[in-house]
């Protein structure tokens, strides 16, 4: 059947959000087959084994961290924040695409979101999970992390709600919860489908429990759709707020290079930027490996590339404004920081990020490149790197030379910093592998609905 589907795409602009020739049955069969098919593809086993090994590295790094202390990292005074915060912001940023795609594009009634929103959401959840680890790990006394939550306690003392870190706790945990709900609600009908298709008893029971007895009643569908729409409506301001709050971690402080009003908008833009990059990085190999070109068409890839280009430009604007204001404000410290950021010891980092985040994506203006999957894939990876560098530059260069020249210093990551960072990437991939193995990576119900709306309903 795949052969039939794989029609060469001449122009992405006309190419549909779903390839012709699908029926409700074929959609259902093909997608659920990925999960229910007997035997696991070799590629999956290899990929999962590798990423799981990296998870072990992460666990080891964390164990050592807890026994010895954060001193194993490169942090010092003045640079008291390092990889932990950089990675936190980076992952959170990546975690923005999913909910954005599902929620905002849903509200904007963008049909093409359908076949990518499911694993984009999953990706979001896993990215946020990785992100959420870091604020906990970077604590000097991580075993007291719960002190950041308000709860009745004998100390009679509570969190300090003027601190952006507390805002973070609330924003991130809310974001994670809502994304999880959103994702799960979306899953319910498909779980029902799997329940009804599962060849083995175990599958039937597990999917059955998860489906909660969903039977597709018209009455249920009605409430379901309302609730889903409202969730989308709630998630939209939330997704914007999360990275705004994260940017407050910096913007609220008085540090030159952090204390900037432009941060919230361009952090959000940056988040979406890296988020879409990550979706592309995942979608492109997935559609190839599982032959999903029919569902994830060139249309999707091109659209996401365009979103990347747009957000990339916003980010570029952010950089320019930052520099301009530093100069225009006439603030000694701001301007010194900016010069140091560009030409100081960490200059190479800065220029690397400019190349990755601003120059490279400009290639997406060219239609030919937009439509070349490989090119888009590479550019997305470059963007992801660039966004990581951006956070590195923001965190390190602002801290390492601030107000008093007497306490200037430098920062360099240790092997433990890297182990933790790479470890989370492993965790992210491992979770993703489990997801595509055991859950439908494309929303079957929504694709069915899509079929009725587009050409595809031949019976």
């Amino acid at each position: 059947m795949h052969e039939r589907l794989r029609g060469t795409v001449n122009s992405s602009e006309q190419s549909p959000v779903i390839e012709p020739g699908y029926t409700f049955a074929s959609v259902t069969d093909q997608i659920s087959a990925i999960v229910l098919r007997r035997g696991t593809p070799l590629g999956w086993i290899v990929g999962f084994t590798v990423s799981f090994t990296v998870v072990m590295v992460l666990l080891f790094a964390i164990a050592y961290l807890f026994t010895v202390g954060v001193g194993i990292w490169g942090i010092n005074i003045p640079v008291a924040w390092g990889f932990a915060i950089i990675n936190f912001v980076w992952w959170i940023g990546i975690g923005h695409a999913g909910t954005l795609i599902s929620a905002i594009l849903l509200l904007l009634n963008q049909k093409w979101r359908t076949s990518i929103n499911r694993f984009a959401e999953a990706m979001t959840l896993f990215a946020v999970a990785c992100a959420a680890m870091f604020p906990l790990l970077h604590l000097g006394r991580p075993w007291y992390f719960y002190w950041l939550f308000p709860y009745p306690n004998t100390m009679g003392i509570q969190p300090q709600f003027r601190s952006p870190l507390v805002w973070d706790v609330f924003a991130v945990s809310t974001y994670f919860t809502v994304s999880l709900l959103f994702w799960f609600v979306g899953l319910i009908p498909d779980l029902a489908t799997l329940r009804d298709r599962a060849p083995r008893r175990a599958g039937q029971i597990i999917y059955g429990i998860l489906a909660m007895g969903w039977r597709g009643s018209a009455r249920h569908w009605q409430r379901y759709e309302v609730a889903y729409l409202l969730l989308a409506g709630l998630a939209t301001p939330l997704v914007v707020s999360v990275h705004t709050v994260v940017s407050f971690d910096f913007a609220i402080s008085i540090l030159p290079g952090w204390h900037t009003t432009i941060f919230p908008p361009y952090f959000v833009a940056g988040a979406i930027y890296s988020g879409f990059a990550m979706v592309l990085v995942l979608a492109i190999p997935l559609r190839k490996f599982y032959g999903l070109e029919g569902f994830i068409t060139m249309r999707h890839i091109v659209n996401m590339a365009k979103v990347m280009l747009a957000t990339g430009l916003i980010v570029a604007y952010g950089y320019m404004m930052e520099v301009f204001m530093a100069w225009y404000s006439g603030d000694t410290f701001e301007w010194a920081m900016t010069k140091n950021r560009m030409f100081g010891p960490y200059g190479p980092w800065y220029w690397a990020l400019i190349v990755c985040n601003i120059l490279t994506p400009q290639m997406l203006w060219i239609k030919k490149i937009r439509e070349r999957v490989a090119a888009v894939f590479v550019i997305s990876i470059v963007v992801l790197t660039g966004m990581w560098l951006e956070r590195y530059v923001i965190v390190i260069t602002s801290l390492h030379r601030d107000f008093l020249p007497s306490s200037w210093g430098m920062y360099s990551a240790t092997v433990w910093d890297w182990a933790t960072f790479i470890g989370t990437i492993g965790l992210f991939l491992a979770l993703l592998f489990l997801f595509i193995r055991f859950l439908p990576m494309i929303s079957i119900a929504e694709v069915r609905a899509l079929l009725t709306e587009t050409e595809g309903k031949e019976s």
Partner: protein
Amino acid sequence: MSINHNRLDLASLRARLGSSRGKEYWRSLEELADTQEFQEFLHREFPKQICEWNDPVGRRRFLKLMGASLALAGLNACSRAPAEAIFPYVRQPEELALGKPLFFATAMELSGVGAGVLVESHEGRPTKIEGNPDHPASLGATDLFAQASVLTLYDPDRAPAVTNIGDIRSWSAFLGAIRSLLQAQRALKGAGVRILTGAVTSPTLGSQLAELLKQMPSARWIQYEPASGDGARAGALLAFGTPVNTIYHFDKADVVLSLDSDFLTCGPASLHYTRDFIARRRLEEGKTEMNRLYVVESTPSNTGSKADHRLPLRPREIGSLARALARHLGVPALSAAEGSVAPEKWIAAVARDLQQHRGSSIVIAGDYQTPEVHALAHAMNHALSNVGKTVTYTDPVEAEPADPVESLRRLVKDMEAGQVDLLVIIGANPVYSAPADLNFAASMSKVGLRVHLSLYYDETSELCHWHIPQAHFLESWSDVRAYDGTISIVQPLIAPLYHGKTAHELLAAFTDQPERTSYEIVRDYWKTQKAGGWGAGQTAVAGTQSKPDSPEFDKFWRKALHDGFVPNTASPQRSVSLRTDWTSESVKRSSGPLPSGELEIVFRPDPTVYDGRFANNGWLQELPKPLTKLTWDNAALVSPATAQRLGLSHEIAWRGGEHGQVLADVVELQFQGRKVLAPVWIAPGHADDCITVHLGYGRKRAGRVGTGAGFSANTIRTSDSLWFGSGLSVTKTGGRYPLACAQYHHNIEGRNLLPSNTLNGYKKDPKFAQQEFPDPLKTPSLYPGFQYKDYAWGMAIDLNSCVGCNACVIACQSENNIPIVGKEQVMRGREMHWLRIDQYHKGEIDNPEVYYQPVLCQHCEHAPCEIVCPVQATTHSAEGLNTMVYNRCVGTRYCSNNCPYKVRRFNFLQFADWETASLKLLTNPEVSVRSRGVMEKCTYCVQRISHAKINAERENRPVRDGEVLTACQAVCPAQAIVFGNINDPDSRVAKLKKEPRNYGLLAELNTRPRTTYLAAVRNPNPELEKT
């Protein structure tokens, strides 16, 4: 790219500075930030990785070793009450209440001369040293060595037992071992007996030695002090024909010329001198008069950094400058020696200035200068008729003034000749510290029986048959003289932790009174003194049979112990007349100027570990040395120009950077055929064509802290050039060595952090320091703000007074249980000092003006750290203290990031030592010991505030001004730090904050700092003002 590619390009640097208009704060040596080479270095993405420097004092290892080895020390450290009655503890005075510390007066001896201290004792544990306000050499202040001495007391590495060739023996076994030998020697009048001590001013010890020499006339007593120069003694001998002790009265001096003298931080009188000198620089209550200081020196020193005019010269050239100046001042009968290398203009101006202040000026020569320079200084003071006014003379304070090197030479000769059967070394460590050319160790092996009394089992102990653990001065009965002769009786605060013996007890053993305790010895000596006036200590002889205590003696004894000194024992002034023929001698001593380019080497005791005796003291090792800011190492200091000429350099390492690690070129110093490898440190203001190396490092057996740190300058130091000498050759090895530097960047980057001005500028515009915010506490704000009703604590620091002596840093460390972290962690920028002394340079690179700025928590009313703490671990108290709640801290470190002053310190690892038993005794019970993962910082010594408030409430009155002294304030010899209640308009601090020079650091950030600074003012000679 090769290393040479990222070097300081001093030429271009100099050129740029030259071209720049007027004085600008210049980038310190990595100013090269602007040079091509440095750019390259910076833009290399991954600089050469530094080979992992395995740290001899790695914290981990430090802890591991200690945990095990200390069980023993721990046991006998459970402060046993001393056997003898010290006052007032054993008599259970009514004021003794548990938890309430008691203070006892005693005195600390350094290089023989003492300074009075008060020791804080918690339930019998001495924990903190304070100055003794009534003692002339202290005036309430202390130096950093006194502050750090408590750590040495509890040092787990101290020798724990009497040993014979490494095996533990008993004291009586030792007595048995020497008995027969002594009998033999008595027959020979002790011809084979040699006693080697440090300088001795203790009347009791002096009399004991006299007694010993009476019993054994042919025995010899050698005094050797590796760190104190002989110039003063020999100079006086040269000028007056008799050794005298010179005392300067800076409180009467308007113009001071220092010939290589670091009188503000070195020497037994430095505390007193600093107090007097700074008093004449205070610009308060509209005062606009200041003294003026000229300093000629080779090695940048604290005194030099306070100079209004500083002239870097090679040590030898200082001699010729002195001669030239003396000629100007009309010192008679001066041979028309060679012309001075110093600019005539300079000499003329200084001479004129001195002439204009006849009788109110001082010419002071440095301890390490030649006798001739000292003689010239004496002559100049006579010519300026300062004698009797600003300069007075007394008898020497030493029991027996002697030429240290000469006597040491004779000892070595005797030993070589095999004439020494018994060598008793008391306190000293000659094997390490003796000049290399004497081959002390080798010749010592020819001695029949070698006995060593010292705190540590050190290099000398290794080569001795017997090692006797010495009692720390806080464990000892003794007495000691201050720089002016005032005698203090040293009383123990705690029984010897390691069964240590005092010098008195050891000597008693050699005068056939082995059973006598130092308590009896000292007490009996003073009983014999009662008849003759208190002054004539050294002549009288200690009675051997104990007299019954007379009530008036008891009264005297109690008072002496209580006050910390024996009244009216200061040596009386004596008048001396200048010899007429001294100059002729001096000519032959004097030598022509060196051909420029020939390198001279300068030896100096280390600013923190002194001559090496404090090498195992972690506080002193980790204390950033003034001017270089180096820790845990010594280096070969060299001037920028010379460094450029020799192609020497250093660069900041990627890890730690400016605030941590610096990679320095390693050079081989060759001097008189001996070699040593040393890392290079470029010291702005250092004299060209000479290199300074500090003593006290490269110890082979110092203990787990000090062993192996740095290099030993003693290995190239010879007896004929103890303090400087020419003919040094330097070769670059190409190697690099990582140095732990607490502050590498001394350029203020044109930021308004440290406004300074000249006296005239100050007169014109007294408010020059105050920018748009005259009162840092009244900056515009949207918030209503909090009212601080009764007390509002604040601090004012007078940068004009601070001499950067570092005593406050150690005092803070001692008071607040601040841990040391080891070189490796310092190189990562993780040292824990709550109070640091920032240092900025201004002016040209070869001879910059140096400004100190002690920075501690500013206790901002709008504290940026507090609003970002997620768990309310740092909040504001009702009295405006920025308090840190360790128990609540989870360690996000956000507060540190948001602190513009970067005064917060974080326990990245378990820095505080929880294992070592003896070190537990050291901790101040009123300050909690912090754990891993917790942020900490200055608390304004809140524990002391509480004390004062409790006392005040008990007497139901408000806390008086000056009742709360923070640890840093209490020790400051310059009284630069003032703390108090700013709500009380009459408080000293409130008055200072009204001074026009008062300004808030970074006040424009609207942090509203409670700590403010008074801008520094210099008083340059208009004639020498650069145009």
